[in-house]
């Protein structure tokens, strides 16, 4: 009943879909599977994937690393690395099924870990520090260990993706055996980047996961911007930058979700110029500071985290976006017809404006590690290394 299919009609043929239950009730995997499969002719068999939230309730305190490896040696290196840098609570191969059409799949394993800290670092070891450390470790594995990639690293969530049609990938990963309170799915028609297992969507960092339809023409700029903050883009695809931008803007810089979306798909200067003063100052500042985070080009994305699902499209609506709701279930799609095909009687159907995010957060306190990003939070900013406007303490101490 709550399946949804987002059909892409234009130049690249990806399809995306997303469902969330606001009270945290679990949605069976076969639903999202149906949603994405009913438009499988939009892909070309070179990529499909799923993100599922709420699938590891018993291990929700641990970062669940889904690791993809080309061979055993690569996996061993990952394990050696994890032994050294993390507390490893549990590990197992990700259950897969033989699928006739999928030849030579990589190896998949999942590890449930918490990062280790050096002694002097340990005292600062709060949640943020753990998250930062985890990001660092994931970056390091992806960059330095040949043939191994962490495809997801959030708590109580995981990504299943690969080269194949969605039904093949779902069968391979046994998606029908999972239940989740948020699902996103992707069916890929790769264009500029090769069809390889790591290049399939969703892309993730921590519990952020992204599925994306379109092409980000500003990739080169976004990538360089992210490098300033230590993010390394290693997966040869433009979608990866979206995940890192979200992590930077929301988790690290403390922007409320809505403004982070505005940074990625900002209003035009002509709109900003006509805003009332306070709003104009705010949006001018967003554009000036976050020019490197603007996603330019046609896109529709769905991104999810432990607690919410967001839909966003580009600022000139080169991709359509429709949202609908029924009770506690929320859907997002590019076509109203697609929504009605799986949910014939939604209570509300609306077409968001270009660049206007659709944000659906779960009710407070319904899931573990629940996150909410609706409010602004103080930014984590490094101390000003240049000491400009700095008052020397000796001169300034006691008056």
């Amino acid at each position, binding site marked *: 009943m709550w399946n949804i299919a987002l059909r892409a009609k234009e130049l690249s043929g990806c399809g995306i879909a997303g469902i969330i239950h606001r009270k945290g009730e679990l949605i069976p995997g076969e639903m999202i599977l149906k949603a994405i499969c009913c438009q499988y002719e939009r892909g070309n068999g070179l990529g499909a994937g799923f993100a599922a939230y709420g699938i590891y309730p018993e291990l929700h305190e641990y970062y669940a690393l889904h690791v993809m490896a080309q061979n055993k040696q690569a996996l061993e290196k990952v394990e050696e690395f994890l032994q050294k840098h993390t507390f490893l609570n549990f590990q197992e191969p990700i259950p897969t099924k033989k699928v006739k059409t999928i030849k030579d799949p990589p190896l998949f394993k999942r590890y449930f870990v918490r990062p280790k800290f050096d002694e002097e670092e340990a005292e600062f070891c709060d949640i943020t520090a753990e998250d930062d450390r985890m990001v660092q470790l994931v970056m390091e594995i992806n960059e330095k260990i040949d043939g191994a990639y962490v495809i997801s690293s959030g708590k109580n969530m995981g990504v299943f993706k690969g080269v194949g049609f969605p039904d093949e990938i779902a069968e391979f990963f046994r998606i029908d055996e999972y239940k989740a309170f948020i699902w996103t799915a992707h069916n890929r028609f790769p264009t500029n980047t090769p069809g390889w297992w790591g290049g399939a969507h969703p892309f993730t960092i921590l519990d952020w996961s992204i599925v994306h339809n379109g092409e980000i023409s500003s990739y080169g700029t976004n990538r360089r911007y992210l490098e300033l903050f230590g993010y390394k883009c290693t997966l040869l695809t433009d979608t990866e930058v979206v995940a890192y931008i979200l992590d930077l803007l929301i988790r690290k810089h403390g922007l409320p979700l809505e403004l982070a979306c505005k940074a990625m798909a900002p209003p035009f200067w002509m709109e900003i110029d006509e805003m009332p003063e306070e709003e104009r100052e705010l949006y001018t500042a967003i554009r000036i500071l976050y020019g490197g985070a603007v996603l330019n080009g046609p896109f529709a994305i769905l991104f999810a985290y432990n607690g919410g699902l967001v839909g966003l499209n580009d600022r000139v609506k080169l991709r359509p976006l429709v949202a609908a709701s029924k009770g506690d279930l929320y859907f997002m799609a590019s076509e109203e017809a697609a929504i009605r095909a799986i949910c014939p009687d939604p209570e509300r159907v609306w077409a968001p404006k270009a660049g206007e995010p659709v944000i659906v957060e779960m009710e407070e306190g319904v899931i573990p590690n629940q996150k909410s990003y609706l409010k602004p939070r103080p930014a984590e900013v490094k101390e000003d290394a240049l000491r400009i406007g700095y008052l020397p303490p000796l*001169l*300034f101490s006691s008056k």
Partner: protein
Amino acid sequence: MPLELDISRLYYSQVNKIIRDYIEKGEREFIIRGVNGHRYLFAGVSAEVKVELYGTPGLDLGAFMRGPVIRVFGNVQDGAGNTMDEGKIIVHGMAGDVVGYAMRGGKIHIYGDVGYRVGIHMKAYMDKVPVIVIGGKAGDFLGEYMAGGIIILLGMNTLYPERPIAGLFLGTGMHGGAIYVRGKVKESYLGLGLKPYPLDGEDEKLLEKHLKEYCEDFGLDLSEIFKEDFIKIIPYTHRPYGKLYAY
């Protein structure tokens, strides 16, 4: 009543802000104590105010200023009166390097010695003529690139009796203005295109006017200064380097 401030625990940007605020409110006289290394005091201030500073001000005292009369009870560091436009700096002590760089107007009176490159690139137009009077001796490159203005060097109140009154390359590149020196300088110390001349009547009037004011500032005896003869150093060409190029 002058406004008294102790700035020993303030940063220069705070001091200047406070001063500007008071000037804005109409305050015209300041006594500032606890000065030590504060940079840019009165930089860019455009107002006729009287100031007494106690201590050692930092870099660029009175830079770009237009109008303030600052009396410093202490020595001044490098760059005092940098590109100063109008006003006056009176120093009851000695001064560092590059004092009065590119000065456009106003006066700097220094009781004692000055460092290197003092009064370089001074300018003048019509009756806007900057003046530097140095009671002691000067380092090398005094008046380099001078395009206008007056430097008067007395060589009297000095810590360095063994040194010559002015250093090497005196007025090098000078193409306007005049340097008056009490006593004599070696011609080999002068820059290209310069010559020492004896004073004429106009010069004497001019010197008397400026030195009278100088003596009033420091309570000195004018006749004592005139006990020795002055020479005047000016360029004999506007274009000392006019023949430098091949076209």
